């Protein structure tokens, strides 16, 4: 900067973007949420050509572009594929830190579902461990109607650890 700019301390302006949104789930997404809210049932969508089950359900198969309409109930138990622990807090986090979340492959699904992990310490978490969904007492039609996934109690697991084929 030349002489004319000497001594000008740079200013920094803090500001926010605060905008309300309402995203429609669509027919397919609405059924997925309603089934969880009203029946504690997790539904997926099957592509008959690729023989894949998507959870959450989708209207189009990404691989073959088929239009999908085969609903399948998947279990509320599954296997942990991956996880992480969060030790810092942000306004947009669903819970206060420290917390854990992971990817759960539900029995019967070919995709993983990202969700919170609860009722376990970091030291107890193992990839491949069996988990079950805990549904919220008050359910409103959101993915947080599943409150978190917890370890299946010993002897209580009837699911398989394989995929959906």
């Amino acid at each position: 900067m030349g002489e004319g700019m000497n001594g000008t301390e740079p200013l920094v302006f803090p500001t926010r973007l605060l905008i309300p949104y309402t995203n429609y789930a669509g027919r397919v997404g609405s059924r997925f949420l309603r089934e969880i809210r009203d029946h504690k049932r997790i539904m997926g969508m099957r592509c008959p050509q690729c023989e894949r089950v998507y959870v959450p359900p989708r209207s189009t198969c990404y691989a073959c572009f088929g239009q999908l309409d085969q609903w399948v109930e998947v279990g509320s138990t599954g296997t942990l594929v991956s996880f992480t622990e969060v030790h810092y807090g942000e306004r947009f986090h669903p819970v206060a830190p420290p917390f854990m979340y992971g990817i759960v492959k539900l029995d019967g699904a070919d995709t993983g579902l990202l969700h919170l992990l609860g009722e376990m310490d970091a030291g107890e978490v193992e990839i491949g461990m069996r988990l079950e969904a805990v549904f919220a007492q008050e359910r409103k039609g959101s993915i947080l109607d599943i409150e978190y996934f917890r370890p299946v109690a010993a002897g209580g697991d009837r699911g398989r650890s394989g995929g959906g084929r």
Partner: protein
Amino acid sequence: MGEGNGSEELLAVSYTLDLPFRYAAGPFLSRFYRELKEKGRLVANTCPQCGRLLFPPMIVCGRCHVRATEEFVELSATGTVLDYTVVLQPIQDPTTGKMREERYPHATILLDDGVSFTHRLKETDLAKLRAGMRVEGVFRDQGERQGHMTDILYFRTVED
């Protein structure tokens, strides 16, 4: 929330996106805001090639693609209204998440020095507003100025 009933109930997810940002104004705009806050005046810099005043001051002339000067000129705060808008309905302000009611009409003001921008008009009686009217900026007192365009409260009508 949902609409429809039974098996056709259609759901939606509502939320407020809440993201914090910190924007650096850069040396030229910082100087502009400091002049406004400390000296209660508007300044501009110029393009050495096309000669036009750059308002707000900036580092490059966007038309000529050359670096602008680092000399600042003070602008007279008197000008003419090119057009005005009366904001009848509150709008959603994305910086606060709240509805923003606007008491004052907005106008495109062409300062006598030749730069134009949007600001508020003091006159709220619609019958008295017209394109072409002469106005001058009313600045806040020094203690109240923050280094923002709201350091000018509004532009009041100058009687001929």
